[in-house]
Protein backbone atom coordinates (compact mmCIF):
# COMPACT_ATOMS: atom_id res chain seq x y z
CA UNK A 1 0.00 0.00 0.00
CA UNK A 2 1.40 3.42 -0.84
CA UNK A 3 2.08 5.76 2.04
CA UNK A 4 -0.60 8.33 1.24
CA UNK A 5 -3.33 5.72 1.07
CA UNK A 6 -2.10 4.23 4.34
CA UNK A 7 -2.05 7.59 6.12
CA UNK A 8 -5.51 8.46 4.79
CA UNK A 9 -6.96 5.24 6.08
CA UNK A 10 -5.18 5.42 9.45
CA UNK A 11 -5.63 9.09 10.25
CA UNK A 12 -8.17 10.47 7.76
CA UNK A 13 -7.54 12.75 4.79
CA UNK A 14 -5.98 16.03 5.87
CA UNK A 15 -5.51 14.95 9.48
CA UNK A 16 -1.78 14.46 9.32
CA UNK A 17 1.48 16.08 8.45
CA UNK A 18 4.10 13.42 7.81
CA UNK A 19 7.45 13.88 6.10
CA UNK A 20 8.79 10.98 4.08
CA UNK A 21 12.55 11.25 3.90
CA UNK A 22 13.79 8.30 1.87
CA UNK A 23 12.81 5.28 3.92
CA UNK A 24 12.22 7.22 7.11
CA UNK A 25 8.99 8.91 8.04
CA UNK A 26 8.07 11.22 10.86
CA UNK A 27 5.43 13.77 11.72
CA UNK A 28 2.15 14.18 13.54
CA UNK A 29 -1.43 13.08 13.08
CA UNK A 30 -4.64 14.27 14.69
CA UNK A 31 -7.39 11.74 15.16
CA UNK A 32 -10.44 12.53 17.25
CA UNK A 33 -9.22 15.01 19.84
CA UNK A 34 -5.79 13.39 20.09
CA UNK A 35 -2.47 14.35 18.57
CA UNK A 36 -0.13 11.47 17.83
CA UNK A 37 3.56 11.50 17.12
CA UNK A 38 4.34 9.37 14.09
CA UNK A 39 7.72 7.70 13.58
CA UNK A 40 8.36 4.95 11.08
CA UNK A 41 9.92 3.27 8.10
CA UNK A 42 8.61 2.38 4.68
CA UNK A 43 9.33 0.61 1.38
CA UNK A 44 10.59 -2.48 3.22
CA UNK A 45 13.90 -0.81 4.00
CA UNK A 46 16.78 -2.79 5.48
CA UNK A 47 17.44 -0.93 8.74
CA UNK A 48 21.10 -0.05 9.30
CA UNK A 49 22.77 1.62 12.27
CA UNK A 50 22.12 5.08 10.82
CA UNK A 51 18.39 4.55 10.41
CA UNK A 52 18.11 2.94 13.85
CA UNK A 53 19.78 6.06 15.26
CA UNK A 54 17.40 8.37 13.40
CA UNK A 55 14.44 6.50 14.87
CA UNK A 56 16.04 6.78 18.33
CA UNK A 57 16.67 10.49 17.82
CA UNK A 58 13.01 11.18 16.97
CA UNK A 59 11.86 9.29 20.05
CA UNK A 60 14.21 11.24 22.33
CA UNK A 61 13.10 14.49 20.68
CA UNK A 62 9.47 13.60 21.39
CA UNK A 63 10.22 12.82 25.03
CA UNK A 64 11.99 16.17 25.30
CA UNK A 65 9.21 18.13 23.55
CA UNK A 66 6.58 16.69 25.88
CA UNK A 67 8.54 16.72 29.10
CA UNK A 68 6.55 19.57 30.64
CA UNK A 69 3.17 18.51 29.26
CA UNK A 70 0.65 17.05 31.67
CA UNK A 71 -0.51 14.55 29.06
CA UNK A 72 2.17 13.09 26.84
CA UNK A 73 1.43 12.33 23.21
CA UNK A 74 1.14 8.70 22.18
CA UNK A 75 3.84 7.56 19.77
CA UNK A 76 2.76 5.48 16.79
CA UNK A 77 5.46 3.45 15.07
CA UNK A 78 4.71 2.60 11.46
CA UNK A 79 6.84 -0.43 10.72
CA UNK A 80 7.88 -1.72 7.31
CA UNK A 81 11.30 -3.35 7.07
CA UNK A 82 12.84 -6.41 5.43
CA UNK A 83 15.15 -6.75 8.44
CA UNK A 84 18.48 -5.34 9.48
CA UNK A 85 21.20 -4.56 6.98
CA UNK A 86 23.56 -7.46 6.46
CA UNK A 87 27.10 -6.19 6.07
CA UNK A 88 30.50 -6.65 7.62
CA UNK A 89 30.93 -2.90 8.17
CA UNK A 90 27.59 -2.69 9.98
CA UNK A 91 28.71 -5.49 12.26
CA UNK A 92 31.98 -3.70 12.91
CA UNK A 93 30.21 -0.43 13.74
CA UNK A 94 28.09 -2.35 16.24
CA UNK A 95 24.65 -2.53 14.62
CA UNK A 96 23.43 -4.65 17.53
CA UNK A 97 24.30 -1.75 19.84
CA UNK A 98 22.31 0.67 17.68
CA UNK A 99 19.35 -1.70 17.72
CA UNK A 100 19.59 -2.10 21.49
CA UNK A 101 19.70 1.68 21.81
CA UNK A 102 16.54 2.00 19.71
CA UNK A 103 14.87 -0.57 21.95
CA UNK A 104 15.97 1.38 25.05
CA UNK A 105 14.56 4.62 23.61
CA UNK A 106 11.16 3.01 23.01
CA UNK A 107 11.21 1.59 26.54
CA UNK A 108 12.22 5.00 27.89
CA UNK A 109 9.27 6.63 26.09
CA UNK A 110 7.01 4.25 28.01
CA UNK A 111 8.73 5.15 31.28
CA UNK A 112 8.14 8.81 30.48
CA UNK A 113 4.40 8.10 30.19
CA UNK A 114 4.09 8.07 26.44
CA UNK A 115 1.84 5.34 25.17
CA UNK A 116 3.65 3.38 22.46
CA UNK A 117 1.93 1.47 19.69
CA UNK A 118 3.30 -0.23 16.57
CA UNK A 119 1.46 -0.76 13.34
CA UNK A 120 3.16 -3.25 11.03
CA UNK A 121 2.01 -2.05 7.61
CA UNK A 122 4.47 -3.87 5.38
CA UNK A 123 7.10 -6.31 6.53
CA UNK A 124 8.64 -6.84 9.95
CA UNK A 125 11.46 -9.31 10.12
CA UNK A 126 13.41 -10.89 12.95
CA UNK A 127 15.67 -8.42 14.83
CA UNK A 128 13.68 -5.46 13.51
CA UNK A 129 10.41 -6.91 14.75
CA UNK A 130 12.17 -7.55 18.07
CA UNK A 131 13.99 -4.25 18.68
CA UNK A 132 11.51 -1.97 16.94
CA UNK A 133 7.88 -3.14 16.55
CA UNK A 134 7.65 -5.42 19.58
CA UNK A 135 9.25 -2.85 21.91
CA UNK A 136 6.02 -0.86 21.77
CA UNK A 137 3.48 -1.70 24.45
CA UNK A 138 0.91 -2.73 21.86
CA UNK A 139 1.51 -4.28 18.45
CA UNK A 140 -1.04 -4.15 15.64
CA UNK A 141 -0.53 -5.55 12.16
CA UNK A 142 -2.44 -5.08 8.94
CA UNK A 143 -3.96 -8.19 7.44
CA UNK A 144 -1.62 -8.06 4.45
CA UNK A 145 1.57 -7.47 6.44
CA UNK A 146 4.33 -10.05 6.62
CA UNK A 147 6.05 -10.96 9.87
CA UNK A 148 8.73 -13.63 10.05
CA UNK A 149 12.21 -14.62 11.21
CA UNK A 150 13.27 -16.34 8.02
CA UNK A 151 11.53 -17.69 4.95
CA UNK A 152 11.04 -21.43 4.83
CA UNK A 153 13.62 -22.11 2.10
CA UNK A 154 16.41 -20.40 4.01
CA UNK A 155 15.22 -22.07 7.19
CA UNK A 156 15.38 -25.45 5.49
CA UNK A 157 18.93 -24.76 4.35
CA UNK A 158 20.15 -23.81 7.82
CA UNK A 159 18.24 -26.36 9.89
CA UNK A 160 18.81 -29.09 7.28
CA UNK A 161 15.16 -30.09 7.51
CA UNK A 162 13.54 -30.83 4.15
CA UNK A 163 11.66 -27.88 2.70
CA UNK A 164 8.67 -30.12 1.93
CA UNK A 165 8.53 -31.27 5.52
CA UNK A 166 8.67 -27.69 6.84
CA UNK A 167 5.97 -26.68 4.37
CA UNK A 168 3.73 -29.51 5.49
CA UNK A 169 4.29 -28.84 9.19
CA UNK A 170 3.63 -25.14 8.71
CA UNK A 171 0.06 -25.97 7.70
CA UNK A 172 -0.75 -27.29 11.15
CA UNK A 173 1.81 -25.56 13.39
CA UNK A 174 2.08 -21.79 13.84
CA UNK A 175 5.41 -22.14 15.57
CA UNK A 176 7.96 -21.32 12.86
CA UNK A 177 6.25 -20.43 9.59
CA UNK A 178 5.96 -16.79 8.45
CA UNK A 179 2.64 -15.03 8.93
CA UNK A 180 0.81 -12.29 10.80
CA UNK A 181 -1.79 -14.77 12.04
CA UNK A 182 0.92 -17.04 13.45
CA UNK A 183 2.34 -14.12 15.41
CA UNK A 184 -1.15 -13.26 16.63
CA UNK A 185 -1.42 -16.85 17.91
CA UNK A 186 1.93 -16.41 19.74
CA UNK A 187 0.61 -13.26 21.42
CA UNK A 188 3.35 -11.25 19.69
CA UNK A 189 0.75 -9.31 17.71
CA UNK A 190 -2.06 -8.00 19.88
CA UNK A 191 -4.50 -7.36 17.04
CA UNK A 192 -4.82 -7.81 13.31
CA UNK A 193 -6.55 -5.08 11.37
CA UNK A 194 -8.44 -6.37 8.37
CA UNK A 195 -8.87 -4.49 5.13
CA UNK A 196 -12.61 -4.20 5.72
CA UNK A 197 -12.04 -2.59 9.14
CA UNK A 198 -12.18 1.12 9.86
CA UNK A 199 -8.54 1.68 10.80
CA UNK A 200 -9.17 5.07 12.38
CA UNK A 201 -11.59 3.51 14.84
CA UNK A 202 -9.19 0.62 15.38
CA UNK A 203 -6.35 3.01 16.08
CA UNK A 204 -8.26 5.02 18.69
CA UNK A 205 -9.39 1.86 20.45
CA UNK A 206 -5.91 0.33 20.31
CA UNK A 207 -4.36 3.41 21.91
CA UNK A 208 -6.86 3.07 24.75
CA UNK A 209 -5.84 -0.55 25.22
CA UNK A 210 -2.11 0.20 25.51
CA UNK A 211 -0.86 -1.31 28.74
CA UNK A 212 2.58 -1.60 30.31
CA UNK A 213 1.69 -5.02 31.67
CA UNK A 214 3.22 -7.60 29.37
CA UNK A 215 0.53 -10.28 29.06
CA UNK A 216 1.71 -11.76 25.79
CA UNK A 217 2.42 -15.19 27.25
CA UNK A 218 -1.17 -15.27 28.46
CA UNK A 219 -2.45 -14.28 25.02
CA UNK A 220 -0.24 -17.00 23.54
CA UNK A 221 -1.87 -19.55 25.86
CA UNK A 222 -5.44 -18.37 25.28
CA UNK A 223 -4.94 -18.33 21.52
CA UNK A 224 -3.20 -21.72 21.73
CA UNK A 225 -0.15 -20.62 19.81
CA UNK A 226 2.37 -20.94 22.58
CA UNK A 227 1.07 -23.91 24.44
CA UNK A 228 3.82 -24.30 27.06
CA UNK A 229 5.23 -20.86 27.88
CA UNK A 230 2.59 -19.78 30.40
CA UNK A 231 2.76 -23.04 32.32
CA UNK A 232 6.56 -23.00 32.43
CA UNK A 233 6.65 -19.38 33.61
CA UNK A 234 4.22 -20.10 36.42
CA UNK A 235 6.02 -23.27 37.56
CA UNK A 236 9.37 -21.46 37.67
CA UNK A 237 7.87 -18.54 39.57
CA UNK A 238 6.21 -20.74 42.18
CA UNK A 239 9.45 -22.68 42.62
CA UNK A 240 11.41 -19.48 43.10
CA UNK A 241 8.87 -18.25 45.61
CA UNK A 242 9.36 -21.34 47.71
CA UNK A 243 13.14 -21.13 47.90
CA UNK A 244 14.74 -19.70 50.99
CA UNK A 245 17.96 -17.80 50.42
Amino acid at each position, binding site marked *: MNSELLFNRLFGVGNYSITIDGFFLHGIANVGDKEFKIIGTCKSVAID*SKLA*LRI*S*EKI*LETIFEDKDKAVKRSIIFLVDTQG*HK*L*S*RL*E*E*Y*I*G*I*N*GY*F*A*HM*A*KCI*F*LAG*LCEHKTLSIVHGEAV*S*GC*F*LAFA*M*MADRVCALEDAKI*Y*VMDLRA*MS*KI*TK*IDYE*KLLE*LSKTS*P*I*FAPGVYNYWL*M*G*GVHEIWFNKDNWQEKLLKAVDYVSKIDN*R*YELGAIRQ*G*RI*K*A*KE*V*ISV*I*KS*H*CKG*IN*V
Partner: protein
Amino acid sequence: MKENYYELSAKERAFYLCDENNFTEICPKSFDFTSPHLRSLNLSVSENDGVLIGIGRIMGFKVMIVSQDSSFYGGSVGEIHGARIKGFLDSYVYFEPEGIIFLIDSGGVRLQEANAGLVGLSEIIKSLLNIRKKGIPVIAVIGGKCGAFGGMGILARLCSEIIITEKGRLGLSGPEVIETVKGTDEFNSHNKELILKTVGAQARKEIGEVNFVVRDSINQIKKAIVSIIIENNIKPKDFNEEVVTEHEILKKRLHIFKNEQ
Protein backbone atom coordinates in the same frame (compact mmCIF):
# COMPACT_ATOMS: atom_id res chain seq x y z
CA MET B 1 39.12 -26.18 39.96
CA LYS B 2 38.78 -25.56 36.27
CA GLU B 3 39.84 -22.13 35.14
CA ASN B 4 39.11 -21.76 31.41
CA TYR B 5 35.57 -20.45 30.97
CA TYR B 6 35.40 -21.32 27.27
CA GLU B 7 35.85 -25.04 27.87
CA LEU B 8 33.30 -25.32 30.67
CA SER B 9 29.71 -26.52 30.37
CA ALA B 10 26.80 -24.19 31.18
CA LYS B 11 26.49 -25.82 34.59
CA GLU B 12 30.19 -25.71 35.40
CA ARG B 13 30.34 -22.01 34.52
CA ALA B 14 27.60 -21.13 36.99
CA PHE B 15 29.02 -23.49 39.58
CA TYR B 16 32.65 -22.28 39.40
CA LEU B 17 31.75 -18.59 39.25
CA CYS B 18 30.00 -18.95 42.60
CA ASP B 19 31.67 -19.37 45.97
CA GLU B 20 32.24 -22.96 47.04
CA ASN B 21 29.01 -24.93 47.45
CA ASN B 22 27.05 -21.78 46.92
CA PHE B 23 25.10 -22.34 43.75
CA THR B 24 21.57 -23.73 43.76
CA GLU B 25 20.08 -24.75 40.46
CA ILE B 26 16.36 -24.13 40.00
CA CYS B 27 14.04 -26.49 38.14
CA PRO B 28 16.76 -28.51 36.45
CA LYS B 29 14.23 -31.08 35.23
CA SER B 30 11.47 -33.18 36.79
CA PHE B 31 8.78 -31.40 34.79
CA ASP B 32 7.59 -31.93 31.28
CA PHE B 33 9.78 -29.09 30.10
CA THR B 34 11.09 -30.49 26.87
CA SER B 35 10.21 -28.77 23.62
CA PRO B 36 7.09 -30.21 21.97
CA HIS B 37 8.18 -28.50 18.75
CA LEU B 38 11.53 -30.29 18.57
CA ARG B 39 9.73 -33.53 19.40
CA SER B 40 7.30 -33.05 16.53
CA LEU B 41 10.29 -32.71 14.21
CA ASN B 42 11.80 -35.90 15.67
CA LEU B 43 14.76 -33.92 16.96
CA SER B 44 16.55 -34.45 20.24
CA VAL B 45 15.31 -32.59 23.31
CA SER B 46 16.79 -31.53 26.63
CA GLU B 47 15.21 -31.36 30.06
CA ASN B 48 16.19 -27.73 30.58
CA ASP B 49 15.73 -26.77 26.91
CA GLY B 50 19.29 -25.46 26.78
CA VAL B 51 19.31 -23.03 29.67
CA LEU B 52 20.26 -23.42 33.29
CA ILE B 53 18.98 -21.07 35.98
CA GLY B 54 19.90 -20.72 39.61
CA ILE B 55 20.98 -18.56 42.50
CA GLY B 56 24.24 -18.28 44.36
CA ARG B 57 26.85 -16.00 45.81
CA ILE B 58 29.93 -14.58 44.14
CA MET B 59 32.47 -13.38 46.70
CA GLY B 60 29.55 -13.06 49.06
CA PHE B 61 27.28 -11.07 46.76
CA LYS B 62 23.89 -12.62 46.08
CA VAL B 63 23.29 -13.17 42.38
CA MET B 64 20.82 -14.82 40.05
CA ILE B 65 22.47 -16.69 37.18
CA VAL B 66 21.20 -17.60 33.72
CA SER B 67 23.56 -19.88 31.80
CA GLN B 68 22.94 -20.88 28.19
CA ASP B 69 24.06 -24.26 26.92
CA SER B 70 25.61 -23.82 23.49
CA SER B 71 25.86 -27.59 23.01
CA PHE B 72 22.07 -27.71 22.69
CA TYR B 73 21.06 -26.15 19.34
CA GLY B 74 23.65 -23.42 19.76
CA GLY B 75 22.11 -22.08 22.97
CA SER B 76 19.16 -20.95 20.90
CA VAL B 77 16.00 -19.48 22.38
CA GLY B 78 12.95 -21.69 21.89
CA GLU B 79 9.55 -21.40 23.58
CA ILE B 80 10.53 -23.19 26.79
CA HIS B 81 14.07 -21.83 26.89
CA GLY B 82 12.62 -18.32 26.72
CA ALA B 83 9.84 -19.00 29.23
CA ARG B 84 12.33 -20.43 31.74
CA ILE B 85 14.38 -17.24 31.57
CA LYS B 86 11.33 -14.97 31.78
CA GLY B 87 9.84 -16.86 34.73
CA PHE B 88 13.19 -16.69 36.49
CA LEU B 89 13.84 -12.99 35.81
CA ASP B 90 10.33 -12.07 36.99
CA SER B 91 11.12 -13.88 40.26
CA TYR B 92 13.77 -11.32 41.19
CA VAL B 93 11.35 -9.98 43.80
CA TYR B 94 11.71 -13.19 45.82
CA PHE B 95 15.51 -13.08 45.84
CA GLU B 96 16.44 -9.41 46.00
CA PRO B 97 19.75 -10.11 44.26
CA GLU B 98 22.61 -7.62 44.01
CA GLY B 99 23.11 -8.57 40.41
CA ILE B 100 21.75 -10.76 37.66
CA ILE B 101 24.41 -12.59 35.67
CA PHE B 102 23.54 -13.58 32.14
CA LEU B 103 26.06 -16.12 30.80
CA ILE B 104 25.23 -15.70 27.13
CA ASP B 105 26.29 -18.40 24.68
CA SER B 106 23.77 -18.27 21.87
CA GLY B 107 23.14 -17.50 18.22
CA GLY B 108 19.69 -16.10 19.05
CA VAL B 109 16.27 -17.47 18.17
CA ARG B 110 15.86 -21.22 17.58
CA LEU B 111 14.73 -21.52 13.98
CA GLN B 112 12.77 -24.75 14.51
CA GLU B 113 10.40 -22.71 16.71
CA ALA B 114 11.28 -19.26 15.47
CA ASN B 115 8.00 -17.46 16.11
CA ALA B 116 7.71 -18.60 19.72
CA GLY B 117 11.41 -17.92 20.27
CA LEU B 118 11.25 -14.36 18.95
CA VAL B 119 8.22 -13.41 21.04
CA GLY B 120 9.78 -15.13 24.06
CA LEU B 121 12.95 -13.13 23.56
CA SER B 122 10.90 -9.93 23.46
CA GLU B 123 9.32 -10.88 26.80
CA ILE B 124 12.77 -11.49 28.30
CA ILE B 125 13.95 -8.09 27.07
CA LYS B 126 11.04 -6.31 28.73
CA SER B 127 11.51 -8.21 31.99
CA LEU B 128 15.21 -7.38 31.88
CA LEU B 129 14.61 -3.67 31.35
CA ASN B 130 12.04 -3.61 34.14
CA ILE B 131 14.63 -5.10 36.48
CA ARG B 132 17.26 -2.58 35.39
CA LYS B 133 14.76 0.19 36.12
CA LYS B 134 14.75 -1.01 39.76
CA GLY B 135 18.49 -0.38 39.93
CA ILE B 136 19.59 -4.03 39.91
CA PRO B 137 22.52 -4.46 37.51
CA VAL B 138 22.15 -7.10 34.81
CA ILE B 139 25.59 -8.26 33.70
CA ALA B 140 26.21 -10.10 30.44
CA VAL B 141 29.19 -12.44 30.21
CA ILE B 142 30.26 -13.45 26.70
CA GLY B 143 33.03 -15.97 26.15
CA GLY B 144 31.58 -19.24 24.91
CA LYS B 145 31.58 -21.12 21.64
CA CYS B 146 28.55 -19.37 20.14
CA GLY B 147 29.29 -15.85 21.39
CA ALA B 148 26.25 -13.54 21.41
CA PHE B 149 24.47 -13.10 18.09
CA GLY B 150 21.02 -12.48 16.67
CA GLY B 151 18.50 -11.39 19.28
CA MET B 152 20.98 -12.33 22.00
CA GLY B 153 23.46 -9.83 20.53
CA ILE B 154 20.80 -7.15 21.00
CA LEU B 155 19.90 -8.40 24.47
CA ALA B 156 23.57 -8.30 25.54
CA ARG B 157 23.65 -4.58 24.79
CA LEU B 158 20.52 -4.03 26.86
CA CYS B 159 22.35 -5.28 29.95
CA SER B 160 23.96 -2.81 32.36
CA GLU B 161 27.46 -4.02 31.50
CA ILE B 162 29.08 -6.57 29.24
CA ILE B 163 32.08 -8.62 30.30
CA ILE B 164 33.65 -10.27 27.27
CA THR B 165 36.59 -12.66 27.29
CA GLU B 166 39.32 -12.63 24.68
CA LYS B 167 37.49 -15.55 23.04
CA GLY B 168 34.11 -13.83 23.01
CA ARG B 169 32.32 -12.54 19.92
CA LEU B 170 29.41 -10.12 19.80
CA GLY B 171 27.33 -9.01 16.85
CA LEU B 172 23.94 -9.17 15.16
CA SER B 173 24.44 -11.43 12.14
CA GLY B 174 27.07 -14.11 12.39
CA PRO B 175 29.72 -14.21 9.64
CA GLU B 176 28.21 -17.41 8.18
CA VAL B 177 24.82 -15.74 7.74
CA ILE B 178 26.29 -12.69 6.01
CA GLU B 179 28.41 -14.92 3.78
CA THR B 180 25.43 -17.11 2.85
CA VAL B 181 23.23 -14.16 1.90
CA LYS B 182 25.74 -11.59 0.62
CA GLY B 183 28.62 -13.72 -0.60
CA THR B 184 32.24 -14.35 0.36
CA ASP B 185 33.33 -10.89 -0.82
CA GLU B 186 31.18 -9.26 1.86
CA PHE B 187 32.32 -11.55 4.66
CA ASN B 188 34.53 -14.61 4.38
CA SER B 189 33.45 -16.76 7.32
CA HIS B 190 36.62 -18.87 7.07
CA ASN B 191 38.88 -15.88 7.61
CA LYS B 192 39.40 -16.11 11.38
CA GLU B 193 41.45 -12.94 11.57
CA LEU B 194 38.75 -10.95 9.78
CA ILE B 195 36.11 -12.32 12.15
CA LEU B 196 38.18 -11.27 15.16
CA LYS B 197 38.74 -7.82 13.69
CA THR B 198 35.00 -7.42 13.16
CA VAL B 199 33.17 -9.03 16.07
CA GLY B 200 36.00 -10.14 18.37
CA ALA B 201 36.49 -8.85 21.91
CA GLN B 202 39.25 -6.34 21.16
CA ALA B 203 37.36 -4.92 18.16
CA ARG B 204 34.26 -4.50 20.34
CA LYS B 205 36.31 -2.73 22.99
CA GLU B 206 38.03 -0.41 20.52
CA ILE B 207 34.75 0.76 19.08
CA GLY B 208 33.15 1.17 22.50
CA GLU B 209 30.61 -1.65 22.49
CA VAL B 210 32.02 -3.25 25.65
CA ASN B 211 33.93 -1.99 28.69
CA PHE B 212 35.43 -5.13 30.17
CA VAL B 213 37.70 -7.43 28.19
CA VAL B 214 39.18 -10.16 30.36
CA ARG B 215 41.22 -13.31 29.86
CA ASP B 216 39.43 -16.62 29.37
CA SER B 217 39.47 -17.16 33.10
CA ILE B 218 36.80 -17.81 35.71
CA ASN B 219 38.76 -15.75 38.20
CA GLN B 220 39.03 -12.73 35.94
CA ILE B 221 35.31 -12.85 35.15
CA LYS B 222 34.51 -13.14 38.85
CA LYS B 223 36.59 -10.07 39.65
CA ALA B 224 34.92 -8.05 36.88
CA ILE B 225 31.45 -9.08 38.09
CA VAL B 226 32.24 -8.06 41.65
CA SER B 227 33.69 -4.72 40.60
CA ILE B 228 30.51 -3.94 38.67
CA ILE B 229 28.28 -4.91 41.61
CA ILE B 230 30.32 -2.80 44.04
CA GLU B 231 30.31 0.16 41.65
CA ASN B 232 26.54 -0.18 41.32
CA ASN B 233 26.06 -0.36 45.09
CA ILE B 234 27.93 2.93 45.43
CA LYS B 235 26.33 4.69 42.49
CA PRO B 236 23.48 2.92 40.68
CA LYS B 237 23.32 3.58 36.95
CA ASP B 238 20.53 5.94 36.00
CA PHE B 239 18.68 4.48 33.02
CA ASN B 240 17.46 7.80 31.58
CA GLU B 241 20.91 9.29 31.81
CA GLU B 242 22.46 6.22 30.22
CA VAL B 243 20.17 6.41 27.19
CA VAL B 244 20.91 10.09 26.59
CA THR B 245 24.68 9.64 26.99
CA GLU B 246 24.70 6.54 24.80
CA HIS B 247 22.85 8.45 22.11
CA GLU B 248 25.62 11.04 21.85
CA ILE B 249 28.31 8.33 21.80
CA LEU B 250 26.59 6.36 19.03
CA LYS B 251 26.00 9.54 17.04
CA LYS B 252 29.65 10.48 17.26
CA ARG B 253 30.77 6.98 16.26
CA LEU B 254 28.60 7.01 13.16
CA HIS B 255 29.78 10.49 12.29
CA ILE B 256 33.41 9.38 12.35
CA PHE B 257 32.66 6.40 10.13
CA LYS B 258 30.64 8.28 7.57
CA ASN B 259 33.41 10.88 7.31
CA GLU B 260 36.07 8.25 6.82
CA GLN B 261 34.22 6.54 4.01
